[in-house]
């Protein structure tokens, strides 16, 4: 029987000792919706841990707020228990093919490999946390899963009192690491803040999570194959988070406008929809200034014609899928331009402006 995929989704809005967030649970809920539908994880194998699932702690007892570390520990205990069961059944200790780990909440990062997500009962003096990336690496290196995907939407400021809680499970020591795959994306680089803001009229959301989910829902598809690959998702996140920020936010070096995506292994995160053809690729508006009406054509990354028009108007409005393109309007040509598939803050597709010389 094929091994099932699993998911751990954590979204914490209530931090009585640190100050609340507004969009972490909403983002986690959206990720849960995606991962249990297009993401292909059976809801029975998806563990959602969000603030509203717990009773609010008494006002004077912020240390009693939930979810706390035990809730996350329980997930990994369950992983190990499944491993033991599989092993006892003669199927080997592997738990599943793929593990999704999604975290949204307050976070900190004394260093790249020491970033943590703070639990609801954390305070400045008792920064109770989960070492999300360390856990993801342990799951990957330890052999519980073939593929581990970590998405962490949390600030990465230094927090001097915060000692990380390391993973308590010992590696299974299974061979075959060369066949395992991982994709780790964090919403901010070291020392940076992850922004949440009102996006698209539905309440506060994390800029990273909105971009991530747009990508996973199809905007990061390779226009040729229809697949969302690790490389395409990385490129999509790197190109498009900034489109949801204002010029003031972009000018602030403390606010993340790019995620930290570690050199991902090459693999397909989401396969092409059934019956996919390149013609089905979503297209985005491009406005070409031709310096007067003329014959024009647009070539794709393989230098083949993508669009041609005799006597194209000026401006020439076309739609193109994601990718690299070049306009040729004899005898002029444009520089190469990229269609990133970006959405702007109101949810509309970004218009790419291109001019021939």
């Amino acid at each position: 029987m094929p091994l099932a995929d699993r998911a751990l989704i954590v979204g914490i809005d209530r931090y009585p000792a640190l100050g609340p967030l507004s969009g972490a649970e909403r983002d986690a809920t959206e990720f849960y919706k995606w991962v249990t539908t297009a993401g292909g994880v059976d809801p029975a194998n998806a563990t959602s841990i969000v603030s509203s699932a717990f009773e609010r702690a008494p006002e004077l007892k912020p240390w009693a707020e939930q979810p706390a570390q035990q809730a996350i520990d329980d997930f990994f205990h369950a992983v190990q228990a499944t491993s033991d069961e599989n092993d006892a059944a003669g199927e080997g200790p592997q738990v599943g093919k793929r593990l999704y780990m999604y975290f949204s909440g307050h976070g900190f990062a004394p260093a790249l490999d020491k970033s943590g997500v703070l639990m609801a009962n954390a305070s400045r003096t008792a920064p109770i946390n989960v070492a999300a990336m360390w856990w993801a690496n342990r799951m990957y290196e330890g052999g519980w899963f073939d593929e581990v995907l970590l998405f962490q939407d949390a600030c990465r400021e230094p927090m001097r009192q915060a000692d990380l809680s390391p993973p308590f499970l010992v590696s299974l020591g299974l061979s075959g690491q060369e066949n395992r795959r991982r994709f780790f994306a964090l919403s901010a680089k070291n020392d940076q803040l992850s922004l949440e803001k009102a996006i698209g009229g539905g309440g506060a959301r994390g800029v990273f999570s909105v971009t991530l989910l747009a990508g996973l829902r199809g905007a990061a598809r390779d226009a040729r194959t229809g697949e969302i690959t690790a490389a395409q998702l990385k490129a999509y996140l790197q190109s498009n988070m900034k489109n949801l920020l204002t010029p003031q936010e972009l000018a602030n070096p403390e606010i993340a406008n790019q995620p930290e995506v570690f050199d991902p292994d090459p693999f397909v995160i989401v396969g092409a929809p059934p019956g996919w053809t390149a013609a089905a690729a979503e297209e985005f508006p491009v406005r070409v200034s031709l310096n007067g009406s003329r014959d024009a054509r647009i070539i794709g990354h393989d230098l083949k014609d993508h669009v041609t028009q005799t006597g194209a108007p000026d401006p020439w409005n076309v739609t193109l899928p994601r990718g690299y393109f070049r306009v040729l309007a004899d005898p002029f040509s444009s520089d190469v331009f990229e269609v990133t598939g970006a959405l702007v803050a109101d949810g509309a597709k970004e218009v790419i402006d291109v001019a021939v010389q």
Partner: protein
Amino acid sequence: MSPSNSTLGISSDDPTAQIKVFDGSANVVARGIGALDAPLADGLYKIRVRVGSEFQERLVALDSKLPQQHFDRLDIASPIPIDNTARSHEYHQAAVRQAWNYPAPALGLGSRLLISAREWSLDNRRSHLDPAGALSIVLPSGDKVNFAAIAKVRQQGDACAIGVVDVDPGFYAVELELPDGSRLRRALHASPGWTTQLYMLFRDAAGQRLPDLAGGSVAIAHQPVVHDAQTRLAEIALDALTQHRAILSDHMRQLLSGKFEQPLLGLIGAHLLLREPDQTGLFGIVVDNLTSMLGIDHPDVGALRTKIGETAPAPVTEPPMLQVSWDLLVQASSRIPGLIPPGTAAARIAESVVPADAWLVWQPPAGQNDTSRLDAKLEVVRAYVQARAQARLPRGLGTFAFDSPIVGPPSVDLDEEARSDLTRALGVPRMTLDTLLKRL
């Protein structure tokens, strides 16, 4: 018909620039360091050139007529106001030179410390009421000297305070007092004949603008480093070290093999070499050079010497400057008993190390009875041991609790992997971990 092939030639003014070429599906199809000649099918590509945390991208149409793609030097982020950095003002560079040229107050002889704390803004108007406040130098005797007493150069505009002091060679610490009364320290080692230079930018902390002690960078040189290319290279190398990026080009290896004059570049380069396969020869050369430059007693050198195969490396009695040096010492302390002798300064700070990135930072106790840092680490150990015990319970016994009448207290007989995880997480050497485990 297969597409024709051409060579995509890329060069950069930065010999450590990481170069990647992406195809139309965002796959990396070529990569190099400093320069690259990539035979590729004619087509459209994206080139990304990264130096430190900064990068440039360029889209190109590759065919036989495409000229070599050259990338200019990038302005990197650094707290040191070096040339070609993003947060440098010429007047800050001038202020460093001015401080250097003042007669330095003398607390000793044979070595020097330079300390710089400065604001930076785009509009040159970030003033500060007391840019020398909150900092002090802790002498080997334990006495403190306020930074204000030696910061002879102070400017407004983007405010700065810079001071130089003559000292005896040895172990010093720079201390930052925080608004809540707690303090942070990091090591500055004064090596004979050298000036150890600490450069900090201000940042928001607890509602105030305070020097970013943990993020400040160190240079070791015989002169101010504001125009020193090797110091800029050391800053790029430090970013690569903390961000786990590969930057060791032939140029860098050549530098490390004997031509580096900036000891920090050698220290960081040696740590980068440790991450590469089959670099033991060059690593040994770099460590020997560093030993000659800084002395065998320098704890950052001592940490590296634990990796050159000596059966009994010299004990390290003082905390190193680099976090990675401390990590090496912590790691080595499991197999080399006595590496960090009890009662020494290095052993004392082990209980109060603060999680940090590039530089080792610790929080000295507020008083003799202040065990707050150790207690916090103890809580992490307790939760870890409890979870480990729960994970090892036979199925059906339910959730483990310390007062469980069924299984009794948890075993603290942790295996090597577990102990290694805990020392790494807590930044404590083996003997400190053992002490914590005994307290459970």
